[in-house]
């Protein structure tokens, strides 16, 4: 006979409350984590969605990409050596639309590569979010530093940098705008460990992300909130299981007196804990994926199933540890205690 199940059936309300707490806390954690990822995506999707690789910038730039200058001979050398390598530059700036309205963008120019949009002289490809601001294919855009004009050629998905939509422009237009011949960065995809090129400093993708102003600070605070939530929920689980166990001390004592094994009591508690937690977490995963679908477009929300499942496993482990720690009482209960305490 499965007494763990019998107890849940008889005390539905108590277990329902426990389940709702686990559901609410994990759901909140998933949502916050979705927002954290969303913001990080909004901040740097352009870089995050690249394959793993190495970024190079000039050592003199002191880890600030827009101060970096890689001279042409060095750049040519690197591009020749690695056929997938690409030289690129990123500059924050403004586009004036046809109504004279300024739109903040991140200009990106690169040598030919599959990794970045290819645009001809006088053309621009924009992140799709610009479409919502009323810009259409064929619109003519200008910039105060640029002598020519751009015609909008099309839109690309999820190209964001430093919270701004990316505007892909031709490398010659870029050089004209910023009065420079040198590109800022060389990106070499797939290269495991960076070898030291003279005067250049190498960054992994993750390291490069952290050179983006605001990225580190933003991610750190959001991740801290997520981990706080995980820790708090862990403690909440433990406290709840502890209280449920304390209520049952008398029962555990009497069960031990009639000969029930301590391990059976632990199994009973684990079964209940697993049942409630798995149920609550599944609901929570389903709800958070549902929320992803109905969340407003403007809301930076990015939550993969993989992330929720990873967090769920962490919740399960924490719940298990919490329940087991609070279950130490079960081991300590003396049958006599319960008998002498009177009616349970």
């Amino acid at each position, binding site marked *: 006979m499965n007494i763990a199940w019998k107890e849940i059936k008889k005390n539905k309300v108590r277990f329902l409350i426990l389940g709702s707490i686990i559901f609410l806390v994990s759901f909140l954690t998933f949502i916050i984590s979705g927002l954290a990822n969303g913001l990080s995506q909004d901040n740097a999707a352009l870089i995050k969605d690249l394959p793993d690789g190495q970024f190079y910038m000039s050592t003199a730039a002191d880890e600030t990409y827009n101060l970096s200058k890689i001279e042409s001979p060095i750049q040519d050398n690197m591009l020749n050596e690695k056929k997938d390598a690409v030289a690129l530059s990123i500059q924050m700036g403004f586009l004036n639309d046809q109504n004279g309205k300024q739109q903040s963008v991140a200009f990106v120019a690169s040598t030919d590569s599959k990794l970045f949009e290819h645009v001809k002289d006088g053309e621009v490809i924009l992140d799709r979010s610009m479409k919502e601001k009323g810009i259409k294919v064929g619109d003519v855009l200008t910039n105060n530093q640029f002598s020519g004009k751009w015609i909008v050629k099309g839109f690309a998905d999820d190209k964001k940098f430093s919270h701004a939509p990316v505007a892909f422009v031709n490398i010659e237009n870029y050089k004209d705008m910023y009065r420079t011949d040198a590109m800022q960065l060389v990106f070499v995809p797939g290269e495991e460990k960076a070898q030291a090129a003279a005067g250049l400093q190498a960054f992994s993708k993750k390291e490069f992300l952290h050179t983006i102003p605001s990225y580190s600070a933003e991610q750190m605070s959001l991740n801290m909130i997520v981990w706080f939530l995980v820790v708090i929920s862990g403690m909440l689980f433990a406290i709840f299981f502890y209280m449920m166990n304390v209520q049952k001390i*008398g029962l555990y004592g009497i069960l031990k007196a*009639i*000969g029930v094994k301590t391990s059976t009591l632990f199994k009973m508690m684990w079964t209940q804990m697993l049942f409630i937690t798995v149920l609550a977490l599944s609901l929570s995963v389903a709800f958070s994926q549902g929320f992803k679908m109905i969340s407003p477009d403007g809301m930076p929300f990015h939550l993969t199933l993989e992330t929720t499942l990873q967090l769920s496993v962490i919740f399960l482990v924490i719940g298990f540890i919490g329940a087991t720690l609070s279950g130490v009482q079960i081991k300590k209960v003396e049958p006599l205690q*319960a008998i002498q305490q009177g*009616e349970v």
Partner: protein
Amino acid sequence: MSVFTIDEVKKTFTNGEVAEEVLKGVNLSLKEGEITALVGASGSGKSTLLTIAAGLQPASDGKIWFEGQNINLMNQEQIRKIRASKFGFIFQFAHLVPFLTVEEQLTLMLDVSETKLKRQEQQREIDNVLKLVEMDHRKNAYPSSLSGGEKQRVAIARAIIHKPKVLFADEPTASLDSKRSKDVMQLIQRLTKTLNITTLLVTHDEEMLAYADRVIKMSDGLVS
């Protein structure tokens, strides 16, 4: 025939600096099919002796012989096994499992004692015992809906469903009125006789002694 022998059992409780010798060398033999009643003033050590005999706490010294083995030398797991399969317990309160029906209380005890029965036999066994304690009409009830006397009858059913060799009853009627007390004692007497159980009964109610085969007086940590 003596199946259970308590031999020079001593028990000392130490509370900080103070040591109190509650049992001072008790000798007692229990006979099969007999109710041995233990009487004495409150605090004379009756419950202590019963719980030691039942393996619920260890003696400080002495031997407790059951089926040729000294329980006082056994480890926790060995004692648990004996409690589960060979002993039955009735206390002042019924101590039923609040979330199990009357029937399930008995199923649990059969599981715990590892009584291997087929489903049908198990059901028959449970029905029989519930008839014996006249609780068959309430077999699907939960403890919260039973009266004190009914709960105690279910507790008795649980104590004997697995056919224990020894039944330990510590003031089983203390929480009942005198009519119910007599019913419960008659029941214990009947079960002891029909199932040939060895029963150790602790009571301080003189009226209940009428149901005992043997009365042992306990005072100041010794029996006479």
